[in-house]
């Protein structure tokens, strides 16, 4: 058991970077080095791309392709260390539990949380937000107010609508501008004595906008409100420190972070979690149960009823650990360059309209349309040419409506993408514009 953490942290195939190597500034060629990892070998860390039929995958914002370290960690756990967690008195269960709790610590480090007890495993972002709504929300009183931004994914809007209905709360909306940006000046007048919570995204899934989350959190906390940040689109691209952000909750999904689906996490500020009631009842979240009543565990166990997705959690921890070994700032600059290239090429293509705040204020995700075809038809064209993008309303109908849109095509980038992918996208969109030209 003592060597267990070894077997579930990055597998030996994960190449780690020596931080003291000084790589070149432009990192787009396959042979170029990023520390000890080359761009080409980084792509090799994602087994999907070994498939000769692999598409030009530009839908990582929806769900990312999987990192080898996560798959290996999952496999290793299932083959050698698997049993239920927090239950058995036998060695195997202790191994499984240790791996699971190690993953919690890895995620805590990844988010720069003070304590791993602040990490609650959930199925993903949606469940994390519903947990806060279902627990904290039940302590709110009629007339209390929640501020929600207009940029939100439906999963950071609908739970608040449901809660508002249940508890007779008032929702107030922080509007976006024509380029899908949130201005702090528009937040100030919404904050008041009844504000209990600000719920906002860190990065927009539909447009890629990076929001002023830290500044907004400071304003909301000054007004006495709690702050929940949806980090689903942020964790793959930004180095997130929940301590620096100053929010009270931070939610994300593993599947957008190169880890398996079915697992994600909620970070909650320790002293806030302490005061929150359970939201689901079941095994594992209790200390003592009689027929009449039960005593609850402290966080995080209080919020983790039932058997969790153990292997998925271990895989997510391993991926977080692996990402921390990479030169993330360099990779971010590199990916931003690829994104900027795609953005620039498409912006310059006749018949293409690109939306959003522009590359400087965005994570590598953007929305666009072509003049003569609906985005769904465009996606079919791109798909036939081996390019996968998402089309539709991206579960952010209010954000699209604010820009006068019903649907867009969205390209989003991940660590495995390269400049050739950006160019293929632009080329194929131009060909589609031509194909559908009236």
């Amino acid at each position, binding site marked *: 058991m003592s060597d267990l953490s070894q077997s579930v942290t990055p597998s030996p195939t994960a190449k780690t970077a020596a931080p003291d190597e000084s790589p070149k500034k432009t990192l787009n060629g396959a042979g170029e080095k990023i520390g000890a990892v080359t761009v080409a070998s980084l792509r090799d860390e994602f087994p999907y791309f070994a498939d000769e039929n692999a598409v030009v995958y530009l839908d990582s914002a929806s769900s990312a392709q999987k990192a080898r370290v996560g798959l290996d960690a999952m496999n290793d756990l299932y083959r050698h260390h698997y049993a239920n967690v927090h239950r058995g008195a036998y060695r195997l269960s202790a191994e499984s539990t240790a791996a699971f709790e190690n993953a919690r610590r890895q995620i805590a480090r990844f988010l720069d949380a003070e304590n791993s007890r602040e990490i609650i495993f959930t199925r993903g972002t949606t469940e994390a937000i519903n947990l806060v709504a279902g627990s904290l929300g039940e302590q709110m009183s009629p007339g209390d107010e929640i501020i929600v931004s207009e940029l939100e994914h439906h999963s950071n809007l609908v739970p608040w609508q449901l809660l508002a209905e249940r508890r007779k709360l008032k929702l107030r909306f922080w509007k976006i501008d024509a380029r899908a940006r949130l201005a702090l000046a528009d937040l100030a007048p919404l904050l008041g004595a009844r504000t209990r919570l600000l719920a906002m995204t860190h990065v927009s899934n539909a447009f890629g906008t990076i929001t002023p989350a830290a500044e907004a959190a400071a304003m909301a906390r000054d007004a006495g409100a709690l702050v929940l940040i949806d980090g689903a689109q942020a964790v793959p691209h930004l180095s997130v420190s929940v301590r620096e952000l100053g929010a009270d909750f931070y939610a994300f999904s593993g599947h957008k972070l190169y880890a398996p689906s079915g697992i994600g996490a909620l970070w909650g500020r320790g002293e806030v979690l302490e005061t929150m009631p359970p939201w689901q009842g079941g095994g594992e979240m209790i200390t003592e149960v009689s027929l009449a009543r039960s005593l609850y565990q402290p966080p995080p166990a209080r919020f983790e009823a039932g058997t969790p997705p153990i292997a998925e959690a271990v895989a997510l921890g391993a991926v977080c650990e692996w990402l921390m070994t990479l030169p993330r700032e360099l990779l971010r600059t590199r990916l931003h360059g690829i994104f900027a290239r795609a953005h620039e090429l498409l912006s310059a293509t006749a018949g293409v309209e690109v939306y959003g705040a522009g590359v400087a204020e965005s994570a590598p995700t953007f929305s666009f349309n072509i003049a003569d075809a609906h985005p*769904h038809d465009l996606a079919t064209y791109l798909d*036939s040419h081996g390019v996968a993008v998402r089309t*539709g309303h991206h579960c952010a109908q209010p954000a699209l409506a604010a820009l006068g849109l019903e649907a867009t095509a969205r390209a989003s980038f991940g660590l495995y993408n390269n400049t050739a992918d950006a160019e293929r996208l632009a080329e194929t969109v131009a060909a589609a514009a031509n194909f*559908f030209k009236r």
Partner: protein
Amino acid sequence: MHDLADAELRQLYQESLLHHSRHPCNFGELTPPMREARGYNPLCGDKITVQLRETGDRLEAIAFSGSGCAISLASASLMTEAVKGMTRRETEELFAAFTALCLGAEQARATPLPARHEDLNIFAGVREYPMRVKCATLPWHTLRAVLEQRETATTE
């Protein structure tokens, strides 16, 4: 490589389909009295409203409005043209033949389109694109919803 894929896509996006999507027939709203239903494809956000007025058992007038991809708009355009003046029974039969056409060659052979509705054959191309079948059938499901006095139809 583009040329081959483009040629295959042309089987789906034939000129007449694109033409119908850009200049749809019966696009707009009827004046009352009429009945209507809304159809929605949650996958891509296509939204369509079908309105109709019956005289006895016959579809006297039909119109549609909404927004969507080329396939759903063209399908609505050709559908409204096809069913105008039909009885309910005839409409049901054509619904069955159209869905069969979109699903596969075998189904289409079992429930063929009547000769005078051969223009609907341009939708046979969606068979090769399973994600798009619902775009073609959404207007038809919506029409059926109006006939069955339901307010909404979805493709899910």
